[in-house]
């Protein structure tokens, strides 16, 4: 056995140039195979995360989008039942307190007020507490018509708003600069229409459904009320707001909420299904995947043909050597096995470098092309409601983050097996060639 291994190593060393060429071709082949595989894995990962995100976001998109029709809309809620829902919620809080006692440190309520904050139409009144003008200059959301808020308007109490072009023209809305819209019973004047991101590159997975661009600027209590409405209407399963403190005046709470509910007026908008949004996000990512796949599979094809041809050429050159071994009594099967062992030895030396490098390359290319870093964010905001302080725990994935690709050990193993499989396939002709060797024709004069 040792002698055999020694001979194989000598054989590789004696043909340094050829060994290196094989190594290089295998390196290219496996690097692109890994690239194709890893980018697919990464895309799937991104898609999965985006879908999760959509699911969460959709739940909170409804207050300002839903049609306020009499029927309960899929993914939305029925405005006629608001009070009923609030009552149910209050009852639930009561039950919670009954179960855990008034002394419990936290009472959990199910909503993501800050999610509402992220998606409601952008407006301006004396309750502004978050506004970032850079959104309209640095982040591609250009003003299509009208203007943004002036510095003094942010604190003046003027009730103004900017409208997403999508909202403005969606369904029956037909909203233009100068129009008045109502949120709650408060009127806002539209001073600008900003473009959505539909015209951004398809390679850019930060492309988001236009509805996600809006940012709420409405009173905290109102946010909270909207959040509460959504919580029951949409049947959220995961609690995410923590109300700090152990004393809640249920009656005050109820009255306050009831008052808010009655002031709601409506903006017309369509309800989008998860599928529709998911598809619009999926497309650019799949386009990236297609480009990756095209490059990777082309390179795999080219390098496979080159490797296949070179290995065959080399085997033909070594035909006599195989003949000598067979003439000495070595079986053809063992001769094929030795050749395969040689090839896999070189190949695995190539994989050791190509696979990690390629994963890194995929990560880097994807990062530059997609410019997306998905990471989980945890934010805690404090709000006051009914003279009490509350903490809102908002946990969400940020789509504007960096591409993060990690392969598990199992996936590395899959890649390794896949690569080895391709090498074995590429030497199929050599196996046939060795099987058909007749030492008599090669060695006798």
């Amino acid at each position: 056995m040792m002698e055999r291994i020694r001979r194989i190593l000598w054989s590789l060393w004696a043909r340094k140039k050829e060994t290196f060429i094989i190594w290089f071709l295998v390196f290219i082949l496996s690097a692109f195979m890994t690239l194709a595989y890893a980018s697919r894995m990464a895309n799937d990962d991104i898609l999965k995360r985006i879908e999760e995100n959509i699911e969460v976001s959709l739940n909170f998109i409804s207050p300002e989008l839903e049609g306020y029709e009499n029927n309960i809309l899929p993914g939305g809620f029925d405005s006629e039942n608001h009070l009923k829902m609030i009552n149910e919620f209050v009852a639930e809080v009561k039950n919670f307190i009954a179960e855990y006692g008034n002394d419990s440190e936290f009472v959990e309520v199910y909503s993501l007020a800050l999610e509402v904050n992220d998606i409601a139409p952008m407006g301006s009144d004396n309750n502004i507490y978050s506004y970032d003008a850079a959104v309209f200059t640095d982040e591609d959301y250009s003003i299509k018509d009208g203007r943004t808020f002036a510095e003094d308007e942010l604190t003046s109490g003027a009730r103004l708003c900017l409208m997403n072009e999508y909202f403005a023209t969606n369904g029956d809305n037909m909203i233009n600069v100068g129009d008045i819209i109502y949120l709650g019973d408060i009127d806002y004047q539209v001073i600008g229409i900003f473009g959505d991101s539909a015209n951004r590159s398809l390679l850019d997975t930060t492309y988001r459904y236009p509805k996600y661009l809006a940012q709420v600027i409405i009173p905290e209590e109102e946010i909270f009320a909207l959040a509460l409405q959504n919580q029951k209407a949409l049947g959220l399963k995961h609690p995410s707001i923590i109300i700090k403190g152990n004393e809640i005046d249920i009656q005050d709470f109820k009255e306050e909420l009831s008052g808010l509910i009655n002031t709601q007026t409506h903006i017309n908008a369509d309800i989008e299904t998860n599928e529709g949004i998911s598809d619009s996000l999926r497309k650019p990512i799949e386009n990236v995947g297609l480009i990756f796949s095209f490059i990777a599979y082309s390179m795999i094809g080219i390098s496979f043909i080159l490797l296949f041809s070179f290995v065959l050429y080399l085997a033909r050159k070594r035909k006599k050597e195989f003949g000598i071994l067979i003439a000495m009594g070595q079986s053809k099967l063992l001769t094929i096995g030795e050749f395969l062992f040689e090839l896999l030895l070189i190949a695995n030396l190539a994989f050791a470098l190509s696979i990690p490098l390629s994963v890194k390359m995929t990560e880097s290319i994807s990062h530059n092309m997609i410019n997306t870093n998905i990471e989980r964010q945890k934010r805690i905001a404090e709000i006051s409601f009914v003279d009490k302080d509350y903490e809102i725990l908002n946990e969400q994935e940020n789509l504007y983050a960096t591409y993060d690709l990690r392969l598990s050990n199992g996936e590395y193993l899959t890649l390794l097996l896949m690569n080895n499989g391709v090498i074995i396939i590429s030497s199929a002709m050599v196996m046939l060639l060795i099987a058909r060797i007749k030492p008599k024709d090669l060695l006798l004069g």
Partner: protein
Amino acid sequence: MNEILKVENLSYYYMDGGKENIILENVDFSFEKDLFYAIIGESGSGKTTFLSLIAGLDEPKSGRILYEGKDIVKLGLSRYRQKYAAMIFQNYNLIPYLNAYDNVATALSIAKKKIDKNTVLGFLERFGIDGSRAKRKVEKLSGGEQQRVAIARAIAVDVDLIIADEPTGNLDINNSEAIINIFKELSKVYHKTVIMVTHNEKNARAADRVVRIDRLKHCLVYDGTY
């Protein structure tokens, strides 16, 4: 009975344009142990074909080749070449990227024999390849030296039958003589049966038995000794 190899009713032909081209027809012959045989014949008479058949490099179209009474086809040609017969070629057929030592060791490993460094070096030494030459790549050795390595390789696996195809065809007179003397020594001292195909009449004379292949009758004729 002292026979090591026996051919019975051996025939061989190849197809040429749909027509059978007969090389050997119903050949019967026995080779005895510990003798040095020379097979002679005109070019194209079938010497090499006969050699490839008795060396287990090809299968007869009909008839049998018996090694110590066992049909070599049934024995398995690979196994026969591995365990019972060793071959020496005109153009040496050593593995070029290995040194002399490793060429011999390779043969031992294929024959599943124990590889002992001193024994291998001893074999090479016995055939005129000293320690420093044993470490040289075989392509750096002279023709005569390469043929000696090939002989050492054949002897090292310790088989009783050595089959040589024009072993002196590429060598000068001195080296040829030395190789023929080695073959004589192999049969007399090491009790091997050596079957050598040669064109060279002088070399044939050195053999114990000379067998001629008749081109027209496609058979072997025992010529006796010179």
